[in-house]
C-alpha cells in the first residue's frame, strides 16, 4: 500500500534547518563544552576559576541565545513546527549522537569517576579539578563528580527552563510550573546541601540531603550511615530524619490528594525538572501503544516492590533484637511493615476494588504475597534475611535502578525514547504517587464535552505516553496513574478540549456512551443501558 511514511517530506526541505542566530549560539555552547573536554583530558588550564566561568557562561548564554533565535520573532502560541522533521527531535543522526554522548557521560560518571579526575587522596585533576573553585566557594570543600554533575544539571534546568518559558510564554500554568522546578533545583538540590556542608565539623555532621528528594526516590535515605549521622547531629538531624519520614507518609499523601502527583513530578522533582526543560524537545518520542502501557505498569510497580523489600531489609540489618536497648527492634519493625502493607492492601481492596483492572488485582495480590512471605521467612527462620543478603539487595538496586535506569537509560536516551522514560517505567516514587492519584485524589484532566476532533496532538505530545485522545474522543476525563500534570496536552489542543483541575472526587471519570451535543434522549437512553 502506498501509505506515506513518517517522513512525508523526502522530496522537500521542510523547516528543519536552524537560523543564523541559532547556529552562532550552538557554536558558543560547543565552545563551552570544549573547555570542559580540554579539562577532562588534563590540559592544564592556568586560571581554573576563569576558565570554568567562561565555560559555564558560554553554555548557559548559548542556550539563551539559541532560544532567542528560535522564538524572538514568533508570536505567542504553540511552537511545534518541524518537530518531526528535525534530526535531533525525530530520532535522526543528531539524536543518536546526543544519546550516545549522554549515555557515555553517565557511564563514566557513575562507574568511572576517576576518569573525570576524581581523586580520593590528594588533589583532584582533570574535569573535577576545574570545578574545585566553585565548590570551595559554596561548601568549602573540593569538588566531587556529583558536584560537577549537579552544576551542569542545574545549568541545564535553568538554561532550558528559560527556553521553555519563552516557548510557552502565553501559558501561565506552564510558566509558573517551570519557575517552580527551576527554583527547587537551584535552591534545594544545588545550593542548600552545599551550604549545609559548611555547617559540618568534626563534632557535627549532616549527611548530604536534598530535602525535596523523598524516599523511595532517594532510596538510600534510611541507610545506616545516614540514620547514624542524622541521630548524632542532634535536634537538627533528628528533625531532618523525621521530615524524611513525614515526607512520604504525611506530606505526600495530602498534597497528592489535593493536587495529584503533579505537585511533585512536574513542579518540584529534579528528574522531572530536567525532563520538562532540557527534555522538552523529546516529549513526543514516548511510546503511546497499549503494549508500552502494559510494560510500564508491570515494570514500575516491580521497582516499587523492589525498593520496599530492599529498604526493609537494609533497615532491619541495623536494628537490634533487644527491646530493652531500643524499642524499635528488628522484629517489631518487620511485623510493622507487614501489618502496614496488609492494611494498605485491604483498604484499597475494600474501597477501590472496582477501579482495579484484572491485571492490577493479580499484581497486587501477587506482590503482597511475595513481600509477606519474605518477611515471614525471616521472622520464622530468623537467620537469612529475605533469602538474599540486604547488602546485595542494596547494591543491586543502586546499580540497576539508581544508576542504570534513572541515569544511563532515563536521561541518556532522552533523544531516543523520550524525556520521561525513568519517570514512567522506573521511578518508585512516581509509582506510589500514581497509585494514589488513580485511586484517591481530586486531580483529573477534564474533557470538554463533545469538542474533541481526535487530532492526536495531546497524545503525540504526552511525555508519559498516555493516549490522551483515546479518552478525550469518548468524552471521558483522563485519570491515569502515570500523568505528571505537565499540562502540555491542554496547551497543544487546538480546540480547547482539555483542562487540568482539582475538583470533587465524585464522577471524576465521567465516561459517556454518547457525546455531549447529540440528542438528549439518545444520550439518556444509551447511558442508562
Amino acid at each position: 500500500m502506498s501509505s506515506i511514511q513518517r517522513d512525508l517530506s523526502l522530496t522537500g526541505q521542510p523547516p528543519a534547518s536552524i537560523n543564523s542566530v541559532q547556529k552562532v549560539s550552538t557554536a558558543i555552547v560547543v565552545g563551552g563544552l570544549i573547555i570542559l573536554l580540554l579539562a577532562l583530558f588534563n590540559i592544564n588550564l592556568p586560571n581554573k576559576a576563569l576558565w570554568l566561568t567562561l565555560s559555564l557562561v558560554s553554555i548557559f548564554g548559548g542556550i539563551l541565545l539559541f532560544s532567542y533565535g528560535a522564538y524572538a520573532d514568533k508570536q505567542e502560541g504553540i511552537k511545534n513546527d518541524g518537530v518531526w522533521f528535525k534530526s535531533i527531535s525525530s530520532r535522526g543522526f543528531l539524536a543518536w549522537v546526543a544519546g550516545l554522548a549522554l549515555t557515555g557521560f553517565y557511564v563514566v560518571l557513575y562507574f568511572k569517576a576517576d576518569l573525570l579526575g576524581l581523586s580520593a587522596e590528594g588533589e583532584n585533576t582533570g574535569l573535577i579539578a576545574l570545578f574545585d573553585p566553585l565548590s570551595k566557594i559554596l561548601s568549602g570543600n573540593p569538588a566531587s563528580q556529583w558536584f560537577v554533575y549537579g552544576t551542569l544539571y542545574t545549568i541545564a534546568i535553568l538554561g532550558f527552563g528559560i527556553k521553555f518559558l519563552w516557548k510557552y510564554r502565553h501559558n501561565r500554568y506552564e510558566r509558573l510550573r517551570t519557575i517552580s522546578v527551576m527554583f527547587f533545583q537551584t535552591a534545594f538540590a544545588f545550593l542548600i546541601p552545599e551550604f549545609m556542608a559548611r555547617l559540618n565539623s568534626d563534632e557535627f555532621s549532616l549527611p548530604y540531603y536534598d530535602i525535596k528528594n523523598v524516599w523511595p526516590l532517594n532510596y538510600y535515605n534510611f541507610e545506616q550511615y545516614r540514620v547514624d549521622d542524622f541521630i548524632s547531629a542532634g535536634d537538627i538531624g533528628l528533625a531532618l530524619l523525621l521530615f524524611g519520614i513525614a515526607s512520604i507518609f504525611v506530606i505526600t499523601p495530602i498534597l497528592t490528594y489535593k493536587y495529584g502527583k503533579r505537585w511533585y513530578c512536574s513542579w518540584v522533582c529534579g528528574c522531572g525538572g530536567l525532563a520538562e526543560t532540557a527534555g522538552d524537545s523529546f516529549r513526543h518520542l514516548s511510546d503511546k501503544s497499549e503494549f508500552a502501557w502494559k510494560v510500564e505498569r508491570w515494570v514500575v510497580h516491580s521497582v516499587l516492590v523492589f525498593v520496599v523489600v530492599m529498604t526493609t531489609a537494609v533497615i532491619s540489618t541495623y536494628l537490634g533484637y533487644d527491646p530493652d536497648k531500643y524499642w524499635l527492634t528488628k522484629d517489631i519493625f518487620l511485623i510493622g511493615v507487614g501489618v502496614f502493607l496488609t492494611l494498605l492492601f485491604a483498604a484499597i481492596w475494600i474501597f477501590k476494588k472496582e477501579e482495579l483492572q484484572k491485571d492490577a488485582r493479580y499484581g497486587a495480590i501477587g506482590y503482597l504475597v511475595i513481600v509477606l512471605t519474605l518477611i515471614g521467612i525471616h521472622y520464622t527462620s530468623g537467620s537469612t534475611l529475605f533469602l538474599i543478603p540486604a547488602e546485595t539487595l542494596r547494591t543491586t538496586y543502586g546499580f540497576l535502578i539508581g544508576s542504570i535506569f534513572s541515569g544511563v537509560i532515563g536521561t541518556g536516551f532522552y533523544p531516543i525514547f523520550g524525556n520521561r522514560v525513568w519517570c514512567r517505567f522506573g521511578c518508585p516514587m512516581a509509582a506510589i504517587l500514581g497509585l494514589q492519584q488513580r485511586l484517591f485524589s481530586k486531580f483529573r484532566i477534564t474533557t470538554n464535552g463533545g469538542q474533541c476532533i481526535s487530532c492526536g496532538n495531546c497524545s503525540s505530545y504526552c511525555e508519559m505516553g498516555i493516549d490522551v485522545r483515546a479518552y478525550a474522543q469518548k468524552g471521558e476525563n483522563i485519570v491515569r496513574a502515570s500523568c505528571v500534570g505537565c499540562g502540555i496536552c491542554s496547551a497543544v489542543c487546538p480546540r480547547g478540549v482539555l483542562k487540568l483541575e482539582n475538583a470533587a472526587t465524585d464522577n471524576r471519570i465521567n465516561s459517556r456512551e454518547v457525546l455531549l451535543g447529540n440528542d438528549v434522549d439518545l444520550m439518556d437512553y444509551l447511558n442508562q443501558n
Partner: protein
Amino acid sequence: MEHVVIVGNGIAGVTAARHIRKNSDKKITLISAESEHFFSRTALMYVYMGHMRWKDLKPYEDKFWAKNQIDLLQAYVEKINPQEQILHLADGQKLKYDTLILATGSIPAKYGWEGQDLKGVQGLVSKQDLELLEHNAPNNEVCPKAVIIGGGLIGVELAEMLHTRKIDVTLLVREKGFWSGVLPDAEAQLISEHILSHGIDLRHEEELDKIIDNGTGNVQAIVTKKGEEIPCNLVGITTGVKPKIDFLKDSGIETDKGILVNRLLETNVKNVYAIGDCARQREAIGLRKPIEAVWYTGRMMGETVAQTICGTPFEYNPGNWFNSAKFFDIEYQTYGWVFSTKNKKDYEQHFHWKHPDNTKCITIAFHKESLQFLGINTFGIRMRHEVLDRWLNEHKSVEYVLQHLSQANFDPEFYKKYESHIQATYNASKQIA
C-alpha cells in the same frame, strides 16, 4: 448474518461501525479508497507542519479493527445497484449488502474557473490532497509563491501550513472580513488582523477570475476579478466543499446537492442510509443547514444511525449547535447560535467584548425583547461545553450568563480572568442604550 456495509471510513462511518458493533453481532464491512485506516481529517495540517506523523493521526491502533471484527476493505465503489443490493467496486469485484450506510464525505467545491484542473491547483480534504501538497509545495524553492482562494477554515489552515515552510502566501477572500459569512464583523476583523500579523497577504473583497497555464500544464499565475495577475506556483482552492455523490448517478438513490435523507437518516431506498458530510436533510433541522460538513455532526449521525440499524430507531435530533476551530494562534469556540452581522436574525442582538491586545474577544447573542441567551462565540478564551449547553437548554437570560460567566470558563489554571471586565463592558453598554 446481516451484512452492514459502510462506504467511507471517516468520522461518520467509523462512529456508525463502532456503535453497531457495540450493539450487535452483525457483519460489518468498512470500505475506503482513501486510506487503509481511519484517520483524523481535521489533523492533516499537522503532518505537513511536522507536528505529527501520519501514523499519529490514527485514533485507533491498527489492531483495533480486527479485534472488534470490523472488516476493512480498501476499494473504490464505482456504482450501486440497490435492487440487487450490490456494490460494484473499481477492481471489478462485487459486494453484497443487507444494509448500506453511505458516508462518503466531501470533495472540494470548484466553480468552473478557467484553468482549475491545471497541475498545482488543489484543495485540502483528503489524504491524497496532503500527498499532492507535499509534491506541489515541498519547500519555498520548488514553490516560492502560493495563492489561496477562499476564506474559510481550510483556507486559513492551508495558509498556516504553507507559512511554516516559508512559502509566500496570498489569500483571497470575497468578503470584507475573514469568514464574515459566519462571524460577526468585529470578530471577522480581529481574525483578519491576526492573519495579516503572521505575514499572510490577506486580500479582502477579491475573487478568482481564472488560472493561467505556463504552457506545460502547470500553474503560472492567477487573475483576480479586478484584473490583477498574481504569479504563483500553487493555487489552493478552499471555497468550501460539496458532497461526494457522483457515483450515485442512475442508482435510484435520490440526491440533489447531497444524498437526501429523512430524520432517520434513511434515503428513499430501503436499507440504504446516508450520514455525515454527504447527507442532506430533506428539511433543515431548526436553524441548521441541511448539509452539515462538520466533524461533530458526522459523529452524531453515526451514533444515531447505529441505533436505528440495531433495532431502536432514533431520529437525528442534534442538541445545541457547537463548533470550534483555530486561526493560527487564536482558538475559537461557539455554542448555540451567533449569526454573522449579515445573517443576523431580526430578534437577535449582540453584545461584543474585545481585549485591547486584539487576541481575545467574545460575542453573546441574545433575544432583543426577552433577553434570552441564544449563543456565544469566544476567541482566545476557552469555554465549558457542559455549562453552556445547560444554560441554552434552560433558556437563561443574557444577564444570568454574564453574571455566571466564570462558571463556564475552561482556560488552564492560573490564566488571567476577564469576566469582571466583560461584565463592566456590558453594564456600560446597557446604560448607553
